[in-house]
């Protein structure tokens, strides 16, 4: 896949810029002397831009590498290759001080509201951790005022500051996680499946909260999810991942109404619609087989073994990342 932009641009409208990012996890064997026996190509050359204030959706099935994209982007996993800029900071080359600045500006919301909060810490310690680490306030009074303010922002009672995570429901815990992410006044938040562990009636609450916060603080989101309906609702642009690469990206309605890549088409047609009459009327592309292993991804186009329209050359040539219309890109020979 060719890159969107080969050199870092200074456009102030662009907050996040990722070019040809790769993350390979090596598989090693041996006790003291480790030798590499292979690598999982979790992310294998991904490029995208995120404008200030917009929400980019990253969708794909489990194992496609979308979570790894979020974590590598924030420097939580060291990237194997590529360029990553967040607010003009070079994530891959940042030294300690610059890294702390990046950490303050870019935050993360996690999928599992149980595992993402330290069970031994009170809500107060959890939410004030970023304040402490980044030395945002010096006095305890200011710190606790900020914690109260953050709890109010996420509609939790400030009286609950001394409670422990297990005393809250899943939805409430997710609000605590959001409050922690907001504490350092970030510009950018990676939301890694923030609602998929929540019940339907709670999902809408959290999504609305995320949207309100975005409006209020002009936040930029990378929204990683597998729920394509929710992604259409919340995201401005959507990128579809398959086996470590982005196969298609477009403005949301363009992508959902005019999907070009056969994988996107199959994915969208598999989403069940809560309307039995419409569901019966629509035709579905059922993919055969399973997603291949990212250790040895298929040659050429990675989707070719499951693709309903694959031709001979699809197994040989890697499809080019092509611009179809203004903001619609796709990597497929047959489009």
């Amino acid at each position: 896949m060719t890159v969107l932009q080969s050199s870092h641009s200074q456009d102030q409208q662009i907050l996040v810029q990722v070019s040809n990012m790769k993350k390979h996890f090596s598989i090693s064997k041996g006790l003291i002397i480790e030798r590499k026996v292979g690598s999982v190509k979790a992310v294998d050359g991904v490029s995208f831009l995120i404008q200030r204030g917009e929400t980019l959706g990253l969708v794909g099935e489990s194992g496609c590498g979308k979570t790894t994209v979020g974590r590598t982007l924030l420097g939580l996993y060291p990237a194997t290759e590529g360029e990553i800029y967040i607010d003009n900071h070079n994530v891959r080359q940042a030294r300690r001080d610059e890294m702390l600045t990046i950490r303050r500006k870019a935050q993360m919301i996690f999928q599992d509201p149980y595992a993402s909060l330290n069970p031994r810490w009170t809500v107060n310690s959890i939410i004030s951790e970023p304040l402490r680490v980044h030395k945002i306030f010096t006095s305890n009074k200011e710190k606790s005022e900020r914690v109260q303010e953050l709890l109010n922002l996420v509609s939790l009672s400030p009286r609950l500051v001394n409670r422990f995570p297990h005393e809250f429901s899943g939805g409430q815990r997710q609000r605590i996680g959001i409050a922690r992410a907001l504490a350092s006044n970030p510009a950018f938040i990676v939301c890694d499946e923030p609602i998929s562990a929540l019940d339907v009636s709670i999902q809408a609450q959290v999504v609305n909260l995320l949207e309100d916060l975005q409006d209020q603080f002009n936040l930029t989101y990378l929204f990683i999810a597998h729920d394509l309906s929710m992604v259409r609702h919340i995201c401005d642009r959507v990128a579809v991942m398959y086996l470590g690469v982005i196969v298609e990206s477009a403005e949301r309605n363009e992508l959902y109404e005019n999907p070009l890549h056969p994988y996107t088409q199959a994915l969208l047609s598999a989403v069940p619609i809560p309307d039995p009459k419409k569901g019966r009327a629509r035709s579905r592309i059922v993919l055969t087989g399973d997603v291949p292993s990212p250790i040895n991804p298929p040659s050429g186009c990675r989707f070719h073994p499951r693709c309903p329209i694959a031709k001979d050359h699809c197994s040989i040539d890697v499809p080019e990342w092509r611009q179809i219309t203004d903001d619609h890109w796709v990597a497929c020979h047959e489009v």
Partner: protein
Amino acid sequence: MGQLVWRRFRRHKMAIFGAVTLILLFIYSIGGALIFPESYANFADTPLRLTAPNLQHPFGTDTIGRDVLARTIYGGQISLMIGMLAVLIEVVLGILVGALAGYYGGIVDSILMRITEAMLNIPEIFLLIVMAKFFGGEIPEVDLFGRTFSGSVIVIVLIIGLTSWMYLARIVRAQFLSLKENDFVLAARATGTSNFEIIFRHILPNSIAPIIVSATLGVANAILAEAYISFLGLGVQPPTATWGNMLDGANNYLESAPWLWFFPGLLILLTVLSINFLGDGLRDALDPHSRAA
């Protein structure tokens, strides 16, 4: 937070019992020394050897006529000190090695765990002898509780501490290996929290339960190990009393003079039990999941 822990701890009746007993044991062995001088504990009234408990000698006398009560008091100072200090070394080393190996993984883990396994594989007796020779004779005497301890006590503490941390290290490593995969650790890293804080403020408090269990067992082991080492002639030398060597000396008089083993045995048992209860209480009090009062 501190208040909450104390409130939970207070509800744990056995833990309160343990804490009180432990304090009484300290008062017994330190306060008792104010009543009997050390020379009395080591004074052999040979004609009165193997006297059963009576008014003069409430705990009886030993094989060469020394007062068992006074000896349990002075022995208690040494045994309690060895138990506590050796476990302190064990816990510090075990946590450090286990935490670093488990958290960093990779090459750090490989090296630290190979060392740990090597330590476990060398017979303990061999380690003890080597270390006793290595440290022996070079350590000056120390003054504590207004009493002079020979350097051998410090040697014993070091030996026991340095040979007992391996199991704890493996437990802590296993805890760290699984806990570090939790999203809250990733969240801390995303916040910019330093590795030091992640290890000690995030992960360690979550692995406190097995550490406490291991440490309480360690105290009992250390008190008994002291007897074993002294028996080999490498530790506390006669006539200085310890609970361990008193128990050891009662070997041949199990039936004929039961007071010889009963009193030091009871004191060791009380120490171990009270530390155990205390540990249980601490573990529950520190666990936010246990229902608060």
